[in-house]
């Protein structure tokens, strides 16, 4: 497959990569854009450790290809700069081994963009998209709840 130049924005920067358009997105992000926070665990779009945002919606980057982000806005955890979610995760200890954490942060970001005032049940339902084996989820739910409150207060 001849390489193409694929242009998109990544964490706010306009980028271009010349590669085979059928390169897996997670692989391209990690290898060509040093996006170490995009982590591959199941390669089956189940665990969500590889979650990124594509035009604001969460997606398993292990299940996507470069051509699918042409012209899109792609966000990874690296683009969060002291985000209220990161602050809340830090305060609540909403992570342990950390392997799922980037995925959960992006998932939560998408949730709060869609629904700035989610109930606890809505948070739990949305977060059930991704797997965490360490925390048992309560602290992640609490952190998202608190971040949402803080973001509403400063909105």
């Amino acid at each position: 497959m001849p390489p193409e130049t694929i242009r998109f924005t990544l964490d706010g920067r306009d980028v271009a990569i010349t590669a085979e358009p059928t390169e897996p997105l997670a692989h391209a992000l990690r290898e060509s854009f040093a996006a170490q926070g995009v982590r591959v665990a199941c390669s089956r779009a189940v665990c969500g450790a590889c979650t990124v945002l594509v035009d604001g919606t969460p997606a398993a980057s292990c299940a996507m290809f470069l051509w699918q982000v042409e012209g899109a806005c792609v966000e990874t955890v690296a683009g969060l700069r002291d985000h209220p979610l990161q602050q809340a995760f830090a305060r609540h200890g909403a992570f342990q081994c950390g392997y799922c954490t980037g995925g959960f942060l992006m998932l939560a970001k998408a949730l709060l963009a869609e629904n700035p005032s989610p109930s606890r049940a809505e948070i739990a339902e949305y977060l059930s998209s991704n797997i965490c084996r360490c925390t048992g989820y309560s602290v992640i739910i609490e952190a998202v709840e608190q971040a949402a409150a803080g973001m509403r207060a400063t909105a």
Partner: protein
Amino acid sequence: MSIGLSLPRADGAEKLSGRATYTADIARPGMLHAKLLRSSHAHAKLLRVDASRARTAPGVHAVLTREDVPSGLMPIYGYFIKDQPIVATDRVRYIGDIIAAVAAETEAQAVAALALIEVEYEALPVVASIEAALAEGAPELFPTAPMGIVPAYGEGARGALRPAANICFEFGYRMGEPSVFDTCDHVFEDEFRFSRMWHYHLEPFVSVADVRDGRIEVWSSNQNPFPLRKELSRIFRMPENAITVRVPYVGGGFGAKNNCKTEPAAVLLSMLAQRPVRLALTLEEGFLTNTQHAAILRLRTGVMSDGRLVARQSHIELDSGAYSDASPLVAEKAGYRIPGPYQWEHVDSLCRCVMTNTAPAGPFRGFGGTQAAWASESQIDMIARRLGLSPLAMRQKNLLKLHQAFMPGESGVDSDLEDGLQTVLAALHHTPAPDRGLGFAVGFKDGGGVNKPAQARVKVSTNGDVFLGCGTVEIGQGARTAMPQIVAEILGTSAARVRVAPIDTDHTPFDQGTNASSGVAVMGQAVARAATAVRDQVLAFAAARMGAPPDTLRLEDWHIIRGNERLPLGPMIMRHYGGTGFEFTADGFFKSEADHHAPLEARCVYWEIGWAAAEVEVDRGTGQFTVTQLVVAGDAGRAINPMLCRGQDEGSAIMGYAQAMFETMRYDAAGELLNGDALHYRVPLADDLPARFTALTLEQGHGPGPFGSKGLGEGAMLPVTAAIANALHDAVGIRITELPLTPERVLHALDQLSTAKALP
């Protein structure tokens, strides 16, 4: 002040930004990628393995089959029993057993090359369950005994290799006289079945090996770098100081990542290819690498009519899979813990490791204590009800008291067991209703490892920047946060000034491994001793400079405090040592003393307790039930960091909850794992949580660790399965003795109960 503060995790900046480095992120110049060819037969002789076409495939730098193992190596590893080959030799013993490995420039090239390897099998009969493996005429997985040892045991304990066909090891413990069974008012015999889960750590098994110039360098997602180094030294016949193991952050372990997994193959490929080699397994391969032990537990318990426990004879069979791995150690613990935290006159326990044609079973959070608690805490409730006693009264009558020895020669239990039980019961607000029930259980394990040595080193620079060298791997439990808090407290500085050095076996002080909930209680003591020794050095130094007795001085914020004086240390050090300054360094060491009177050759460092209370509501129409409330507690002794304590108890409790409700590996009789993939293997998700779920961290204050601390991490998992089964019993009168507690099992039990009630 650091102790008792829920300081934000020290690894937060890295993990929340995504910049944390795990072994999965390690890349070396010229690194090749390895993939494995695994057996599609559960049990077969390997007649032929022909990799000739793979060797010349594009991009291939090394191929490893049984023919490629250099002579002079010891390519078989294990714990007590060395039975697991790096690549299969004469036979394969489970679907997934490794036959060959290829290192190539890309993973795609490695896969393509593996597809060119020809293998001829001669199928052997398959024994994929404990019953099948022990049946008359069952094929033996190891017709020839592998090399093995039996460790020394203390009073009452014994071990043996290969007591029978397909049993690689057995552990026994006996105390008191069997004749007391004759004095009992009742003797109850019950059988329990424990299921099998996979650890499901998100970071896969992965290592990078670089062999060159007579040195081996390994980066590995591993929980015990020093034993790994020792095993590599033995396998590759190289001195330990020619082998360096580095462990960055580990993305979850839960026991899976102990000792050799991907490392021997990666090292061997690197030797053959003369390039660094990365071997990363997929999630599906993880299921085929190491699992929890399923078990059959038969308990014969003698009691008096008033509920007093007298005697228990236990027979446990662990499904150890195709290779022994840590099974003998798990057998020790399941066999030792099966009496539960109760007073007995006589105990006779036997636990056997049964080899089956399934994935090797090894260390899994709870380590025999989960199996034991499932059976023991279920039976206590069953017996109570048979005697017409409440489950609470039955436990109150028999629970070990604070400081009472678990068994003769053992240390005393350092938690108030009844207090913890009352605490979880009080926290669960239960109102009786039809088909709603309450159940509880006390989980219990000897924590801190056995005879386990730990070393640590603390260094402080001229400016008061603190280095901690400590081999406890950060697998998520928060070691990199808690240990600095201990150091900071002793040195009178802030935890933020204490950094844990990367783990590198050349420089990090020796540690036996990150396991057995031994971090704070064992390594923490070594860390505290090192910090104390450094503090004493600093005070002695200052005392000499100031001409004052050291005991009139205090260290705080890298200042010397004497009465009203507050002198900065930096200038004091520079004046004495000159321009380049100095570093204060000290080591700390801890190991519980060997004691032949103790059953396991050393008295238990501390007792890790987990209490659980559960409320369930049952839907009689489908057998489905909901855990409406789950309250768990662990005793931290003195919490170093309460937030971390809560994290351990919640995480482990949810694993227990999952085991009770739905999570299980399913093997068929042919040794095929039916649900070993991300879509079908169900792990708990955020919306699976009980409506009310609380983890309480108790601080009963009796721990031997620094500042009265104890360990956490496994305790809260232990009681949950039995607590839920006991709640079902309370709710609708059914008793299920196998896991998981599926809707079908509940419905079936309800039917049987109605039928039994309907009989005249």
